[in-house]
């Protein structure tokens, strides 16, 4: 058994980012903070003058905030879900990626529902959703599922970090005030390890149905309404697949950036990106299948109000966005991911960025065209976002990146104890042979 010192020395690369902040760090943090705090001003402006400061109106009464809500909740599926599935299936290559995935989940889940807060006419009364709960409303189901998922994900991330926090507690005496209480007195005894293992196994199993329920219910916010092209049974699985799709893409981008910035080449190897790339490829095919199924059934069903929305998307006002979505969600990523030679770190990153853009467009195309084409033709309208909405979106994204960045300065982005455990297991396997 190695002592903590040797372990932390061995994983010097993982711990190094915690020890200091150089120029590049400040050059990233300062502009991001400026954007982040600018959005506070924008929100204050909107809060004071009313939601009329956005581009919303009649009949497009839900817009950017809902798009970003769905988008961020989608990203949040990456993490815990993927991490849990990979754990349950004992995918050996998962170890260096899971922590990053869990972090993305927690912060995306914090960012997503915040949009609802921006969107409310009386934001300060948001807790009334819990206080005056009306169980028939899909929004209440949403609230319940998201909160459950959020707390489970935080727990998941935290529990799996306890041994690492204990390591840091001993390594950084100056930050003892932070690590000491968080480590819960972890010393690595056998009994503690047994408990940890049990808790992780339980959380892994619990988190999968919760994650699936979250995005299903998010889709039901639209699917349970009578509006054309929302009222569709495919929405649940379609949203879940889309969520995992954008989630995996986010993990790949985050992992690629962390690898580059913190010099983690030794841990995050091309094989990891290759495997994640294959997962992303699977989701790309699934996305294509669902999209085709949805649009083809709508076309053949030929409901008058449905077709109005359909043609607005395919060949009308929103056609440019629609075909860009197809380009970014499928045409660009598919060949990159399908060909083994281009499934490199660079290749998968490009594909992932493309997927993220495409999936944001998809969220836009799900929400806006339906609202602009209600059943009764006299109510038709259009929508263009205002500076407030752009600011909030920029601020939210900046906040999301900032949160991950700050996290990486206080906690290791790769699970040290799991890397150790994995290596030990490998060694004992070779010894047996």
């Amino acid at each position, binding site marked *: 058994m190695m002592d903590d010192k040797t372990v932390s020395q061995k994983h010097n690369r993982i711990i190094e980012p915690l020890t200091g902040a150089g120029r590049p760090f400040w050059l990233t943090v300062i502009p991001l903070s400026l954007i982040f705090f600018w959005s506070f001003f924008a929100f204050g402006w909107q809060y004071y003058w009313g939601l*009329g400061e956005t581009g919303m109106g*009649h009949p497009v009464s839900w817009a950017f905030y809902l798009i970003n809500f769905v988008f961020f909740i989608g990203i949040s599926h990456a993490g815990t879900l993927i991490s849990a599935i990979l754990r349950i299936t004992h995918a050996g290559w998962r170890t260096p990626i899971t922590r990053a995935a869990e972090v993305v989940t927690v912060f995306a889940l914090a960012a997503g529902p915040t949009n609802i807060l921006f969107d*409310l*006419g*009386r934001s300060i009364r948001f807790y009334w959703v819990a206080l*005056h709960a009306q169980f028939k409303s899909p929004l209440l189901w949403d609230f319940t599922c998201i909160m459950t998922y959020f707390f489970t994900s935080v727990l998941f991330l935290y529990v799996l970090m306890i041994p690492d926090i204990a390591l840091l507690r001993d390594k950084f005496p100056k930050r003892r005030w932070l690590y000491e209480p968080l480590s819960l007195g972890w010393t690595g005894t056998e009994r503690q390890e047994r408990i940890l293992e049990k808790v992780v196994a339980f959380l892994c199993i619990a988190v999968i149905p919760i994650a699936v329920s979250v995005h299903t219910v998010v889709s039901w916010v639209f699917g349970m*309404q009578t*509006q054309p092209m929302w009222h569709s049974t495919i929405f649940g699985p379609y949203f879940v697949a889309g969520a995992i799709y954008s989630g995996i893409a986010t993990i790949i981008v985050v992992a690629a950036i962390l690898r580059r910035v913190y010099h983690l080449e030794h841990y995050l190897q091309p094989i990891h990106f290759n495997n994640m790339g294959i997962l992303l490829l699977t989701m790309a095919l699934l996305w294509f299948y669902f999209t085709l199924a949805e649009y083809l059934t709508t076309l053949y069903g030929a409901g008058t109000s449905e077709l109005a929305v359909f043609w607005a998307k395919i060949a009308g006002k929103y056609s440019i966005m629609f075909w860009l979505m197809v380009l970014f969600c499928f045409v660009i990523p598919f060949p990159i991911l399908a060909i083994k030679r281009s499934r490199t770190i660079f290749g998968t990153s490009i594909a992932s960025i493309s997927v993220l853009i495409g999936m944001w467009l998809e969220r836009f195309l799900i929400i806006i065209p339906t609202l602009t084409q209600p059943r009764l033709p006299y*109510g038709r309208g259009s929508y263009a976002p205002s500076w407030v909405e752009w600011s909030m979106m920029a601020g939210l994204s900046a906040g999301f990146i900032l949160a991950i960045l700050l996290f990486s300065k206080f906690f290791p982005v790769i699970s040290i104890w799991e890397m150790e455990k994995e290596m030990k297991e490998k060694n004992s396997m070779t010894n047996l042979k």
Partner: protein
Amino acid sequence: MYRWGMVIDLDKCTGCQACVVACRQENNIPFVGEKEAKLGRAKFWMNLVSEVKGSYPNVEMHFLPIPCMHCDKPPCTLVCPVEATYKNPEGIVAQVYPRCIGVRMCISNCPYTVRYFNWHAPSWPKEYEKGLNPDVYTRRKGITEKCNFCIHRIRNAKEKAKKEKRKIRDGEMIPACAETCPSEAIYFGDLDDPKSQVSRISKSRRAFRLLEDLGTEPKVFYLKEGEWDDG
């Protein structure tokens, strides 16, 4: 128990928009101005839409006054997370302003698009403020509002009838739009009373409702143009 309903005879409607003005006056609906109206923030609890068919000299013009349909199976009340909107025992789909937190899911789930949101704080020209109806709550920014069949008038009528120990007589209680209509195209009354005018003419062969196939069971009936019967 009453079950309030409305019948609008499209043959009698001249498109004068008096109902729209009367409703605005009665229910303290603020003006939003041209700029805001272009962004879709104009509020019409009673809205009048028109349609021009054909070209000169064979032009036809049609009008459709659209209040809230007060569905018997309202999609909007189902989705409100805080129960700020509900169907009251007399069938009116009512909005509880102080409870509303401005989620706007009711707006997006209304197939008739007759729910309106206060995008900004309401304001009136100074001279106009004295003319506000004291019986009606003025709404604040950030909440949803809608036609409520002049529920304050119904309350007054009920109190009066209670004092005299009787039910509200047919035609005694009418909303502002019906009261104003110069061609008497709007009828209002109790649909459950088989002798009331609305319950009789709502069964006319000319009667239809908007988007009946959705199964929302609106309580606002229209009488088709151009086909006369004894209705």
